């Protein structure tokens, strides 16, 4: 029989997970006997024992990418999303699938658990290490995360397929618009839905896909990337499913007006002259034209047309097109504007021999365009993309070279790195290291000391990220 859910249960569930995440994070940074850790322990124990008094049992379980509390799936609310994400990652790292608490617990029980949990990372069999260590504590039982099939294991392959299919579909859309053909919006929404599902389940892999810029068909990849990054950002902002689909569709079409721009201007290897710039600056209006020609008017069409029209406008009313009565820019436009600039600045273009590295781009956007971009959206963007975005080439204090492979939402400055050279400068086929890992003396094993642009050295990101 299904567990009956009331609002108190939901609050309890969210609070337990939140406190556990805070507790783990504090314990990672401080010694187990530190006041902050002790305070977090007491808070957590008191919360758990209260719930045990009411419910008798607590079952905290991971299924897929969600936490279930006494069989109830926890919904990700904005204020807890980062904690939930990071906790899922931590559980998976030590292969912990379920925590079952049957009786009241003591602070000592929890201290033992946390101590083992943090050390289990270093063990070859982290779950066994954790479970063995907990065998004397009867009130807490642990279960290993359920084994998943080979097919599911190959998530990277699925994400890759979804990504390329999205590009292929967007290419088809552009061609249809070019030929004044009708677009199948049902299919477009399905493509967006599949992309969003991957963002929910495999955000980092998909973000990694957008970091590869070596494709020949820039326009389609750029539109796909903008769409993926926009939706990922929308999800970080806790948009509901409908808003995410609308944002996904609107962002696909943001540059559709470029269809009208002659290729010799779009791909001109040298600087554009004034008259060529005038043509480029017309693409937002041409975009509106293309969208309005494409389908009848509804809220989705209006949102898409507004994004196409406003994505080069700035919040300080600079940018283009210049309008008679400038008004506040739409939220979707502000999202797409940041994402569009970021993706374009990091891309290889015929007219730009040296595209910026992802981290330099973020810095550039922050320093030079601060008054032009929405600070709130930018903040969420940086937190999603990471201080060292995926694909950034880094030198570690170990003198190894690596590429940022995945972000760590708890410690944005300590991402997971794919090592590409050893400390002697010998090329090695990458293996992953986590910059959040510590040695027995509570010191980080590796730290970034410098970042560089992989493009300067012809490093093919695809080789590592795909």
């Amino acid at each position, binding site marked *: 029989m299904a567990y009956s859910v009331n609002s108190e249960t939901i609050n309890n569930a969210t609070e337990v997970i939140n406190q556990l995440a805070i507790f783990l994070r504090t314990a990672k940074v401080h010694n187990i006997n530190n006041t902050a850790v002790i305070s977090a322990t007491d808070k957590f124990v008191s919360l758990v024992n209260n719930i045990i008094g009411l419910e008798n049992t607590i079952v905290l379980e991971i299924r897929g990418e969600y936490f279930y509390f006494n069989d109830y799936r926890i919904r990700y609310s904005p204020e807890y999303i980062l904690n939930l994400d990071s906790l899922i990652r931590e559980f998976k790292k030590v292969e912990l699938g379920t925590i079952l608490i049957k009786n009241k617990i003591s602070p000592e029980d929890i201290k033992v658990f946390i101590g083992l949990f943090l050390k289990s990372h270093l063990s070859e069999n982290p779950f066994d290490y954790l479970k063995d260590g907990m065998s004397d504590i009867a009130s807490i039982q642990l279960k290993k995360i359920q084994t998943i099939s080979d097919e599911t294991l190959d998530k990277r392959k699925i994400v890759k*397929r979804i990504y390329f299919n999205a590009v292929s579909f967007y290419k088809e859309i552009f061609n249809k618009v070019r030929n004044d053909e009708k677009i199948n919006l049902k299919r477009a929404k399905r493509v967006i839905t599949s992309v969003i599902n991957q963002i929910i389940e495999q955000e980092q892999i998909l973000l990694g896909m957008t970091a590869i810029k070596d494709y020949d068909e820039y326009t389609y990849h750029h539109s796909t990337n903008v769409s993926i990054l926009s939706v990922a950002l929308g999800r970080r902002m806790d948009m509901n499913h409908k808003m995410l689909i609308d944002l996904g569709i609107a962002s696909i079409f943001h540059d559709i007006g470029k269809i009208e721009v002659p290729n010799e201007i779009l791909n001109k290897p040298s600087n554009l002259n004034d008259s060529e710039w005038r043509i480029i600056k017309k693409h937002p209006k041409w975009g509106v034209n293309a969208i309005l020609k494409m389908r009848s008017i509804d809220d989705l069409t209006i949102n898409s047309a507004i994004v196409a029209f406003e994505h080069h406008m700035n919040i300080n009313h600079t940018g283009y097109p210049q309008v008679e009565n400038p008004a506040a820019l739409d939220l979707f436009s502000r999202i797409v504007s940041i994402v569009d600039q970021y993706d374009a600045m990091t891309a290889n273009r015929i007219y730009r021999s040296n595209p910026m590295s992802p981290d330099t781009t973020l810095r550039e956007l922050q320093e030079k365009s601060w008054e032009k971009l929405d600070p709130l959206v930018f903040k969420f963007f940086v937190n999603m993309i990471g201080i060292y975005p995926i694909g950034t080439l880094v030198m570690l204090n170990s003198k190894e070279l690596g590429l940022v492979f995945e972000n760590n939402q708890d410690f944005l400055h300590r991402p997971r790195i794919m090592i590409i050279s050893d400390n002697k400068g010998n090329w090695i086929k990458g293996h992953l290291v986590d910059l959040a890992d510590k040695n027995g003396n509570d010191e980080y094993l590796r730290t970034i000391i410098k970042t560089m642009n992989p493009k300067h*050295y012809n490093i093919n990101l695809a080789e590592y990220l795909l």
Partner: protein
Amino acid sequence: MEICEQLTTVRNIIQAILKAKKIVNLYPENNPIYIKALKELSDRFSEFFQDNESLKLNIDKNTIFYDSESVYQNSAMLDNLALLFFKDGVRELTFKNGLTAKETEAFIKIISLDFEKDTIDEDVVTLFWEKDLDNIQYIVEDQFLSDDYEKKAMDELQQKTSTPESIEEIYSAIFSEEEGSKNEIILPVTDEDFHSLLEEFDKHNQDKTDKSLNMLFELFSEVEKEQEYLDIVNYFKMFIEFFIKKGNINAVVDVQSRLKKLIDNERTDREIRKCAVKLLSFTGGYSIIDLIGNILNSSQKIEENVFKSFVSFLDTNAILPFMKLLGELKAIHTRKLVIDALVYLGKKDISSLYKGLNDPRWYVVRNMAYILRKINDKNAFTYLLKPLEHEDIRVRKEVIRTLGELGGDKAITSLQRCLHDNNIHVRKTALSALGNTGAAAAKQIIMEQISDKAFNDNSFDEKKQYFEALANWKDRDVYDFLVKMLSKRSFFPGSKDYDNKACAVYCLGLIGRKDAIPILNEYKNNSNKLLREYSFSAVQRIENGI
């Protein structure tokens, strides 16, 4: 539960789904039949979940399976539940114990949509996904996925593989300190940021009319080529229709007002002005007025002042569509809005209104007669003659009232004829209309009618109506006529004479001249009760100045 029993329960669930699917399209949510169908389905699910944790259905093109057994079979192309899921890629559908009534209803509402309609932009899978139903899971085969582009793109990337030598280059660059940096942007997200986001979402979901219109007018101001003019006019039309379909007449008024400014501005480009005129005219065309009719016929509220503003920008081309609408309107309370619109527009082109007088629907002709009365253009007279003969007395009465207000010799002559209409109500209306004209000719007609022998054949009520009409003239002529009538010895002695005299007394009372009091007093003690009572009332009326 035995497998046979389970299969029966599952088949019952499918049947309940099919039944609910039909019913939700036919009845509103608060209808008992609607509620019952969903309740039945929930009961079926509950029955199954007493012994099972989940119900997993496998979907094939024409068949739905439970535990490898067929529980639904249909090979038709229409109304095929299996095909509905299958064509959108659903291959497995699982209902979990804990399924709520809300989730069941959401599920039924989705599958009961007409997915063949162009207006539905989602398929079953996208809608399930949007709803994010906790206890309904599905496995989908994404048929749109293919490897073709992936292979091509991967081949391109293969050719750009980096060489190990470049590592040395990086190393030397880093150690020569020519390359490399480390500037971390730290922008922690705070609770306040999440609150700000909620406000942003609210703003995002607000109406985007102004923004859309500003965008459209920006495009409009920069069109150059002929095709662009055609396109922009088309976009405006689409937006206007969209606004009206949403009941947003305010937005249309905004468009009209901005178009009018463009038209009135001398500096506006000639082509743009032409487009603006065309668009303004479009707002009064059949398609838009028909949509307005949908709103007027619905329960949607329409603000009178907004509607008036809308009409104020319309041109005469809106007259015929509004007249058409007048014939189609079902809601009586909104009829006045359309009539007022036609009164306003009809002043600009009254001849278009005359067509409405030939409408086969009596109520349209009647409304048109009313509208012509409000416009009060004497030229309408000729066109009113035909409906004056209309078979419906409500029309004849309305036309008579209009003729009465238009006045003029021709109208009075027509009204005189109406005094012989075979319907007493029409005759009474004609009398009242004649009285309202205040014309001497009309007075003369009434007096002649009263003096006519045949007058005595009228009922007392009708006679009284004549004198009421006559009382509109409070002049000497009428006074003398009445006094003379009272003093005259009748050729028709008896009750009819008393009836006539009572009416004359009544009329003197209505006229209210004090010099009539002595004459009236003479009849206060008359042997005829009717005359006595009428005289008494008339005197009182004059003395009290009523």
